[in-house]
């Protein structure tokens, strides 16, 4: 089955992974900007990173027939440095018109601090000003519920934000309902230990329906599995779900969400 991985950090993966993804049916990926495992020291470090995301990664993906899209921001882990965050936010518009840039992301919270909330709100301001779509990271483990509620408060507190153009990612059983009920898209991340398993993601599709739900691998430099979306496809098949339902979640839903971005020019694979 052809599918799209709507959240994967390919800069951290090998070219062999692109080949494996292509063999598994992946036709497109979207790659949000994220934390490199260390705090970058200057705005120039981010400029180089955004060059890589918008120039080299689409080329590398293209070697295997995969379409590459991206999102730009400074990650919540680096938001404690508010002055650097502001420099990066000021620089992002240089890249927003490039092909394949879908919007601002993955912005969000990490430890749910005041500085993180301040930088999140300033990213929202940029997204509103540039009419960009938004992809949101929700915190890990014990911080997820509190952080997700805080994020929803900030989003809902700004009437300029079109909820149908916002994806709130890494939802789990305790956060998926409020995200969907408030009209946002919700992403389920399939990880080996934290976040969701393929079976728990299938449970949430059964409980809430497929509308505005996405699944992704969030493959990165840590423990993660870039072919996790095919694992979800298999979990759904084992339960007897139709190919049409599975395809809606792993292919049509990401297309529908991304199609709201002016820079999303998708070529249907033959």
């Amino acid at each position, binding site marked *: 089955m052809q599918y799209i991985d709507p959240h994967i950090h390919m800069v951290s993966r090998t070219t062999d992974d692109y080949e494996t993804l292509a063999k598994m049916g992946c036709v497109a990926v979207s790659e949000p900007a994220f934390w490199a495992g260390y705090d970058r020291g200057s705005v120039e470090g981010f400029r180089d990173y955004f060059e890589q995301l918008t120039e080299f990664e689409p080329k590398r993906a293209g070697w295997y027939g995969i379409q590459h899209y991206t999102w730009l921001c400074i990650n919540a882990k680096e938001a404690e440095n508010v002055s650097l965050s502001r420099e990066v936010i000021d620089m992002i518009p240089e890249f927003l018109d490039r092909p394949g840039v879908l919007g601002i992301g993955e912005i969000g919270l990490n430890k749910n601090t005041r500085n993180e909330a301040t930088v999140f709100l300033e990213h929202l301001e940029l997204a509103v000003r540039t009419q960009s779509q938004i992809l949101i990271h929700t915190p890990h483990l014990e911080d997820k519920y509190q952080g997700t509620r805080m994020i929803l*408060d900030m989003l809902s507190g700004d009437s300029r934000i079109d909820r149908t153009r916002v994806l709130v990612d890494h939802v789990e059983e305790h956060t998926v309902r409020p995200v969907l009920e408030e009209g946002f898209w919700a992403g389920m991340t399939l990880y080996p230990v934290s976040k969701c398993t393929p079976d728990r993601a299938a449970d949430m*599709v059964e409980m809430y329906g497929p509308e505005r739900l996405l699944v992704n691998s969030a493959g990165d430099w840590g423990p993660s599995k870039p072919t996790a979306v095919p694992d979800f496809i298999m979990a759904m098949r084992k339960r*007897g779900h139709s190919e049409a339902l599975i395809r809606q979640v792993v292919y049509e839903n990401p297309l529908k969400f991304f199609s709201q971005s002016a820079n999303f020019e998708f070529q249907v694979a033959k």
Partner: protein
Amino acid sequence: MNRADRSAQQVLEAEVLNLRAKLLEVAAGLDRIDRGAEPLADAGTMETFRGAIETLLRPGPNRAERIQLLFSRAYEDSWRENMEV
């Protein structure tokens, strides 16, 4: 959306080995902690685990959601005033 043609018995039969293995992992993990050389410094985590196990035994839907909330920090809707954001 749960497949109407899958009865609870069929779901159980599909899940039995998987659930059995996971229950044994939990039991073996708790035994491993008990065998540790020093007494636990962090009793709170074990208390939370106990609450999660008790949640499994209570009837009703959404056990996963209830356990997730048990593992979560509290949310206060006054956070914006408190943080002055």
